[in-house]
């Protein structure tokens, strides 16, 4: 009993995930086919990459509402570049850098000018979406992957049978996990979220760390933008709208505190899987569109109540 309790305490949301999986697979056996499992991973890779970056931001006590807009802008830039004939191996790193720079813009405003992250990224979200509209004239770029084999590989390719988006997701999970758990920078991220004043008095470069988390978030969003563009083989001017809320939900469901200082990347991974399984499962079960939203909200609420109960 005691053993169970301690497992439950540590992995409350993991249990939510398993229960979800069991329920859905009991209702429809198609759920647990290899195709569908890979399908889910492919789908969550976009939200996942954003949520990983968001985890860093939230751990410092910040928030990044501009991730969806950065995704949209970098996806559109990618599309326009490729259509203009720039090779994809050049265009892809370029938009990743641009994503990082957009994040850096957020980060500098937040750390140097000491503005509130919520409102800064709300404003830049609007600005970046506006920029996407301006550069695209509101028109999508279509059929992008035709002459862009590398870009195409980002969604269609696979390595050892693992779809490439899933591969990217896991690769960055490991990379960012090491960054967060085993580097001085990672400690700084937790320290700033725990108490920025204490971090400062310990002579940590708080401004630099705070800027960097937004750079990571921006770069991850741009990477998600590359994958989405590849998946759709087109750049939609409105792509990314609302993605910030899904990413934040994943992070918080994963047990990271919005107050900062407490949370794990592993939790975020579970969080994105819960959201992914939920979205996929509701379709697989065939729940009517009208009820899907309601049930989604309910499950999220349930997951955080459970997490709360387990952590205290």
């Amino acid at each position, binding site marked *: 009993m005691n053993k169970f309790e301690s497992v439950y305490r540590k992995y409350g949301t993991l249990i939510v995930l398993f229960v979800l999986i069991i329920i859905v697979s009991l209702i429809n056996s198609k759920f647990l086919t290899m*195709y569908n499992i890979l399908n889910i991973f492919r789908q969550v890779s976009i939200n996942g990459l954003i949520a990983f970056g968001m985890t860093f931001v939230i751990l410092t006590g910040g928030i990044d509402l501009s991730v969806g807009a950065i995704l949209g802008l970098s996806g559109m830039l990618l599309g326009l570049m490729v259509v203009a004939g720039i090779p994809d191996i050049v265009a892809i790193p370029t938009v990743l850098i641009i994503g990082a720079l957009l994040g850096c813009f957020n980060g500098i405003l937040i750390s140097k000018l000491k503005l509130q992250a919520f409102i800064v990224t709300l404003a830049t979200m609007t600005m970046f979406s506006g920029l996407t509209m301006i550069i695209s*004239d509101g028109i999508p770029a*279509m059929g992008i992957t035709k002459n862009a084999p590398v870009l195409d590989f980002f969604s269609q390719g696979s390595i050892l049978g693992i779809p490439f988006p899933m591969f990217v997701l896991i690769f960055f999970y490991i990379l960012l996990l090491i960054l967060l758990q085993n580097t001085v920078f990672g400690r700084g991220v937790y320290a700033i979220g725990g108490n920025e004043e204490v971090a400062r008095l310990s002579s940590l470069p708080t401004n630099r760390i705070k800027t960097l988390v937004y750079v990571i978030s921006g770069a991850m969003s741009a990477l998600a933008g590359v994958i989405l563009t590849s*998946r*759709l083989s087109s750049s939609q001017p*409105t792509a990314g709208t609302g993605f910030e809320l899904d990413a934040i939900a994943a992070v918080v469901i994963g047990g990271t505190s919005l107050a900062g200082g407490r949370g794990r990347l592993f939790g975020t991974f579970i969080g994105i899987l819960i959201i992914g399984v939920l979205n996929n499962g509701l*379709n*697989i079960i065939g729940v009517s*569109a009208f009820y899907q939203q309601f049930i989604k909200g309910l499950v999220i609420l349930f997951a955080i109540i459970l997490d709360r109960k387990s952590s205290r």
Partner: protein
Amino acid sequence: GGDSGEGSGGGEGKEKIALLMADLGNPFFHVLRDAVVNQGEELGYEVLVYDGQNDASKQPSQIEDALQKGVSAIIINPGDESSTANALEDAIAQEIPVVTVDRSVDVEGVLSYLVTDNLKGGKLVGEWLQEKMPEGGKVIHIEGVIGTAPQRERGGGFLSVIDPKENPDSKFEVIDTAVGDFSMAPAEAAMSDLLAKHDDIDVVFAQNDTMAVGVSRAIETAGRQDDGIVIIGFDGAKEAYDLIEQGKMSVTAVQDFEFIGSEAVKYVNDFLKDGTKPEEEVLVDVYMSDEK
């Protein structure tokens, strides 16, 4: 892209027409916008374009703003049937001609409704399908933003023909419905899920072409492009024709936005010139097309 509005400096002397679009985020509506702007410029007007950004509650404010700027006429593509009614009443009270395009508005005294017949369009899709596949088949229905008129009318028209519950003669079976919000990414995701669920799919009807493109991509990603799934879109957008040409999509139901846009400006122009009134309600037919 001639999204105007910024022309306030240049066109001092010109009369102004306000064009209120429901959602320029949907590229297909650019066809309508461009048709109005081009025809307007040809006839010597300055066209002020407003974007409702897919939010019906933005449009009343935009009408008020337009009136404020002293426009001589309003062409509106309303987000829904009634949100703008009160605001348009104000305009009509100021004797400003109002033409609604693509959707109607529930208000008295509009100069003309120039409306795509979405219900008929939906039926047409169904009838086309029955003719093409008399033996019937399994259908997936991808819907647009729930609660909007095109979603209800296109879907309603389609189901009235295809769904055995509404038409006992139908040999088709609607095996699943999903929501794609009239945009590509959610349609692609939903279709990917449904491909996991169903091994046997004959037809996918997407309520607009953007979603149809997403559906086609999902099928490609799943490696089932050779299953012979018939994909039907709606709108007649460029991307649909591209896919049809590549054999990845079957057909789209075309709304004649070129016609609607230029007609609307002509109605306004005639009325402003000599008070000629067009027919109050012009239903513009949809036609099925699989070639450009």
